């Protein structure tokens, strides 16, 4: 606590001395706030955003989610199950100590040992079978099976200082590392362990109010332009835009769609946007019995592929994008935006309400049926409005559709209990490749393989599972991409899900700033530049 106060006091002194006019200050208004500054506490976008400023990972991703070196200068596969990472030399932590392989070992050891973590990064470390450290700047990582995603997964977690946490002697053990105690989340929040190698140091953290970062003068890479960065959570849309327009902040993320047109026209504001890695889809329950469909004598019409095709064809995706998404989205034909790794360029969507009606009739439902669509109303951009628009379109082909909207705290629990025949969902491919949505959303649920954790439809096609299994064990990128594209085609042909659109992520900032928009939706202060 004392430490925290002194940090804060320092920060405020800096504010008073520096004044508000300090040219190299960047103030960012964010839609969401991290739940903690502990880089391993909660695998959540806002946490990972702030983490990237303070703690770096071995490998990083650029704005298009291609891998780039970070703390690892280079890496190669020795064989299918063995990877060698060469670490960057001369990198210093914020406390002046040098970064070595031990810091990586300690980080991997600590990740499963974060008390109370609601969503851990073990997801990305469990592929690691053993770690060898031939010298302080070389890592040999072995996996139990061929594991092509290893470098991608190493981008997800930040590396903490083993020395600061007292873990210089900890060694890696797959069954669980041994240490006297593990650092607490609190120690990162109050700044005492917020020691990374990143371009910024933590200056002040006040929950709900602000996170202040100072430039790390000893940063190994390109030094950011800003002496000081302030993240302010402004969760309501209107006030966030208002704060930008009023000059309270320099940049905001997730400006509301309905304001984009006006912001684009504003001579004092510039807007950047890019296709994100998030797909918005409808999941169609394919179980024997289904809860929210009526008028079919207890049969589940969604088991019939013709009905599923009809329900995909009945949707005017372009109208939704235009009217509901204000042209800030891209109609979707597959589960990840084309162009990203493992997508299939040949897949197309079609809109044909007449044909949809015929298909329904062929399947034995000439008069349609009654349906209730479940949707969250505070999770994805305009989620509940999209569901209503879809309901309109279904009603027009004879499926009398109602919308059952709920906040996520209720929605997810209900979805997990299987309370919806059809629900609206969204999926971000954190790894930036097609294996992510395929594995989670449409693969058959197999616990041991980690397949289908978010497959709530009961869809199952052995062909798809085989292709995916093969792809996930194929280290050769070209070969893997082909397998994934094939699996994607299988899912789309079966109408395993109804893809609606890919979200477009945008940022709005005062004129004079530039930001390369990122597919992974992160707002990174060090990548914001002023045009001079």
């Amino acid at each position: 606590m004392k430490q925290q106060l002194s940090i804060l006091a320092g920060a405020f002194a800096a504010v008073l001395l520096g004044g508000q006019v300090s040219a190299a200050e960047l103030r960012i208004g964010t839609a969401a706030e991290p739940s903690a500054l502990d880089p391993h506490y909660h695998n959540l976008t806002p946490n990972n955003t702030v983490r990237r400023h303070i703690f770096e990972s071995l490998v990083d991703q650029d704005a298009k989610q291609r891998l780039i070196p970070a703390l690892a200068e280079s890496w190669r596969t020795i064989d299918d199950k063995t990877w060698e990472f060469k670490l960057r030399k001369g990198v210093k932590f914020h406390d002046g100590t040098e970064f070595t392989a031990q810091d990586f070992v300690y980080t991997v050891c600590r990740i499963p040992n974060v008390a109370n973590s609601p969503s851990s990064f073990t997801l990305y470390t469990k592929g690691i079978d053993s770690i060898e450290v031939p010298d302080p700047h070389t890592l040999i990582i072995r996996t139990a099976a061929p594991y092509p995603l290893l470098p991608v997964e190493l981008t997800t977690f930040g590396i903490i200082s083993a020395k600061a946490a007292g873990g210089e002697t900890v060694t890696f053990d797959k069954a669980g590392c041994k240490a006297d105690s593990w650092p607490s989340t609190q120690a990162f929040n109050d700044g005492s362990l917020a020691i990374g190698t990143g371009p910024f140091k933590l200056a002040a953290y006040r929950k709900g109010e602000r996170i202040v970062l100072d430039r790390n003068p000893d940063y190994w890479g390109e030094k950011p332009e800003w002496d000081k960065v302030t993240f302010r959570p402004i969760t309501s849309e209107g006030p966030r835009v208002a704060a930008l327009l009023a000059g309270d902040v320099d940049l905001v993320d997730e400006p509301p769609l309905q304001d984009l047109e006006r912001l684009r026209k504003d001579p004092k504001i510039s807007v950047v946007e890019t296709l994100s890695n998030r797909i918005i889809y409808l999941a169609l329950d394919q179980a024997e019995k289904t809860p929210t469909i009526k008028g079919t004598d207890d049969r589940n019409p969604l088991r019939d592929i013709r009905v599923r095709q009809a329900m995909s064809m009945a949707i005017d995706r372009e109208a939704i994008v235009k009217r509901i998404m204000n042209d800030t989205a891209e109609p979707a034909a597959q589960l990840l935006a084309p162009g990203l790794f493992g997508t299939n360029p040949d897949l197309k969507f079609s809109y044909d309400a007449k044909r949809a009606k015929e298909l329904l009739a062929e399947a034995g439902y000439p008069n349609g049926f009654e349906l209730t669509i479940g949707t969250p109303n505070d999770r994805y951009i305009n989620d509940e409005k999209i569901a209503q628009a879809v309901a309109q379109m279904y009603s027009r082909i004879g499926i009398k559709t109602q919308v059952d909207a709920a906040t996520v705290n209720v929605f997810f629990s209900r979805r997990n209990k299987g309370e919806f025949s059809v629900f609206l969902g969204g999926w971000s491919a954190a790894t930036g490749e097609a294996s992510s949505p395929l594995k989670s959303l449409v693969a058959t649920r197999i616990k041991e393989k980690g397949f289908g954790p978010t497959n709530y439809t009961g869809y199952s096609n052995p062909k798809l599972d085989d292709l995916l299994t093969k792809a996930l064990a194929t280290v050769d990128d070209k070969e893997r991409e082909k397998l994934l594209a094939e699996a994607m085609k299988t899912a789309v042909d079966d109408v395993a899900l109804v893809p609606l659109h890919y979200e477009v992520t945008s940022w709005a900032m005062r004129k004079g700033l530039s930001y390369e928009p990122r597919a992974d939706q992160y707002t990174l202060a060090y990548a914001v530049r002023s045009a001079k």
Partner: protein
Amino acid sequence: MTAASPVAAAPRVQTPLKRFVVEFLDSRVAVLGLALLVLIVSSALFAPLIAPQDPYDLSKLDIMNGMLPPGSADMDGNVFWLGSDEQGRDLMSAILYGLRTSLLVGFSSTAVALAIGLVVGMIAAYAGGSLDAAIMRLVDIQLSFPAILIALILLAVLGKGVDKVIIALTAVQWAYYARTVRSAALVERRKEYVEAAQCLALPKQRIVLRHLLPNCLPPLIVVATVQVAHAITLEATLSFLGVGVPVTEPSLGMLIASGFSYMLSGEFWVSLFPGLALLVTIVSINLVGDQMRDVLNPRLQH
């Protein structure tokens, strides 16, 4: 004074009632409020007949008519007098139906709370002793907590739904009535006519129902009127906070909340008109309630 002379039966009750009407009509503002209120309630009641569109029937909506400004017409020549929302829903229809939800919640929660408060208050007043003390302690405790906090927590627990909002609002209101009824009943109880009735050994229920109850009503009505307005505002606020009615059955508060994000971008009508409708409703109820209090309050009459 209404309460002083009413030992006797029905025919003479008319006199105070008449006087109440005359005195109420004394204030032009209050009459205006009453007229507005009648208009609002009846348009909400007859919404399905008046509204140009059934805003809940999704097959009648078309997103291509979304976000039309007030007064514009769609391709078939249907005019959206107050504009439309992003689903192409006519806002006037949405407001009329939203009014129904808001008024339903306001009136029914008040009615139920009134009934509960009446019974509990009467029991407390009549039973006296430790039962009275226990009940009033409970009332005191509840009243020391702000209604919004109790309702918020209750709804967070109960979940969304019109019925649940009614339950929550009933739960926060009953104590007001219980206290009002008890104190009115205590005053009445000491009056001679009740003592006379007791001497006649009339049954307890009869004394309570025929004598105590009618005389406790005036202050209750005043409290109830103001509470209806409170309940409607509270419902709107709770819906705004995300714990009220579901989005599919929007009340006025819900309409305001979901339209707010459009206000900045110039599509003011989606939030402004429901807001005005809410405002007019509450002001008219408050105007009526204010005048009723002035007329029925014996202290100001003398």
